[in-house]
């Protein structure tokens, strides 16, 4: 490793972040977010009436989330049907976003979030969450806060942020983390690997600091949209 990572980054350096808003005109809200080559397109439809009626919840709306990887997004073509990983990630992403949404403001309705990973180079679910959070805000869905997410991990005994595809495969441990930045609350936490308690705590702190950086990027993108100059 000799001090730098495979792609030349420092340990605490995220890949280049790219944000595009309103990318799907038919959707109620949409956004694209990228960490380096990993790119996620998120769109929101809703709140809308839910049919059949038995799906409706009396007291609040229902958030439905579908995470999907395009067949061409990875090295070996991924067959289009949802696989077990996509099903678990759809659930995990939904649960990362749900705490931020005031579902009780729209009883009996459904809010659908669709995420398509157009290119995958590690850390797809956090890219997805960042895109979805923007799409939800753009759709006017009432939220407690935006949701920011990033990955951190341990490679070659070094603690790093934003793992790319290769790093994901060879890491000693990787952590997926999402939070509501202004509330200081964690909405997603997954960890795989082998870590001491202290390493785990350090990684959590690292994730938190990088999420604040992502928050600034999200905020600027949203505020920028509403600046009109002529």
């Amino acid at each position: 490793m000799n001090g730098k990572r495979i792609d030349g980054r420092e340990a605490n350096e995220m890949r280049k972040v790219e944000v595009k808003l309103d990318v799907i005109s038919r959707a109620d809200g949409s956004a694209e977010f990228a960490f380096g080559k990993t790119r996620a397109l998120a769109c929101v439809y809703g709140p809308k009436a839910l049919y059949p009626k038995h799906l409706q919840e009396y007291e609040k709306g229902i958030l439905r989330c579908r995470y999907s990887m395009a067949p061409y997004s990875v090295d070996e073509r991924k067959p289009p049907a949802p696989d077990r990983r996509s099903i678990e990630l759809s659930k995990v992403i939904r649960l990362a976003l749900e705490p931020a949404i005031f579902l009780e403001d729209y009883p009996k309705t459904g809010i659908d979030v669709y995420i398509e990973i157009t290119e995958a180079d590690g850390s797809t679910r956090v890219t997805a969450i960042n895109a979805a959070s923007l799409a939800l805000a753009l759709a006017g869905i009432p939220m407690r806060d935006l949701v920011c997410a990033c990955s951190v991990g341990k490679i070659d005994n070094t603690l790093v942020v934003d793992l790319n595809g290769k790093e994901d495969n060879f890491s000693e441990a990787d952590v997926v983390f999402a939070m509501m930045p202004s509330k200081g609350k964690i909405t997603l936490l997954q960890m795989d690997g082998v870590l001491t308690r202290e390493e785990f705590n350090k990684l959590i702190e690292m994730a938190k600091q990088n999420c604040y950086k992502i928050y600034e990027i999200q905020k600027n993108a949203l505020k920028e949209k509403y600046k009109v100059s002529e």
Partner: protein
Amino acid sequence: MSEKERPIVLPGEFLGNKEGKKVGENVYEEDGKIFSKVIGIPKITESEVSVISLAGKYVPKVGDRVIGIIVDVEVSGWFVDINSPYIAFLPLGEAVEEFVDTSRVDISKYYDVNEIIFCRISKVTKNKIVQVTMHDLHAKKLVGGIIIKITPSKVPRVIGRGGSMINLIKNKTGCELIVGQNGVIWIKGKEKAKAIEAILLIEKESHIIGLTEKVEKMLSE
């Protein structure tokens, strides 16, 4: 050179301490502090804190006058699409003056599917069952013309203070214009394309100060 904009707030952004103020629309309170729920323009007065959302669906409110499309004819009423996640119902009794024998009459002769009405929201129950009525001074069937939809929260800007904006558009284009609180707008007239352009401009730049002058300039060209 950027024009003067009203400040935009984002979900989770701190707006101020509660201090006895009313928690208005699109904001929430936590530990005595008030935060925005949406992307929008904050409205902070002595007595209330609220945010005007720049996006979002129409949530029906009693008293609102809305434009709806008939989507289904039932035995004793009609289902009306009011551009909301919640569908509305127009009961026969609220639409027609005379007595109607529903066993003999097919009520689609009064209002049929795809027809457009300007009506008032008369009831919204706790679980969001919505009822509309045609028993209102301004209620009527809208014939001819076309419909466009804008973000409901931008309707006040399209109407303008005391109707100033909407009258400006009417005068400059000679069109008939009815604006529903639910973001549905009905336009009839030869220069409707110009009217539509003006409305879409207002929707896009609703948060910009000096919009009225800009619209006036555009309509005069």
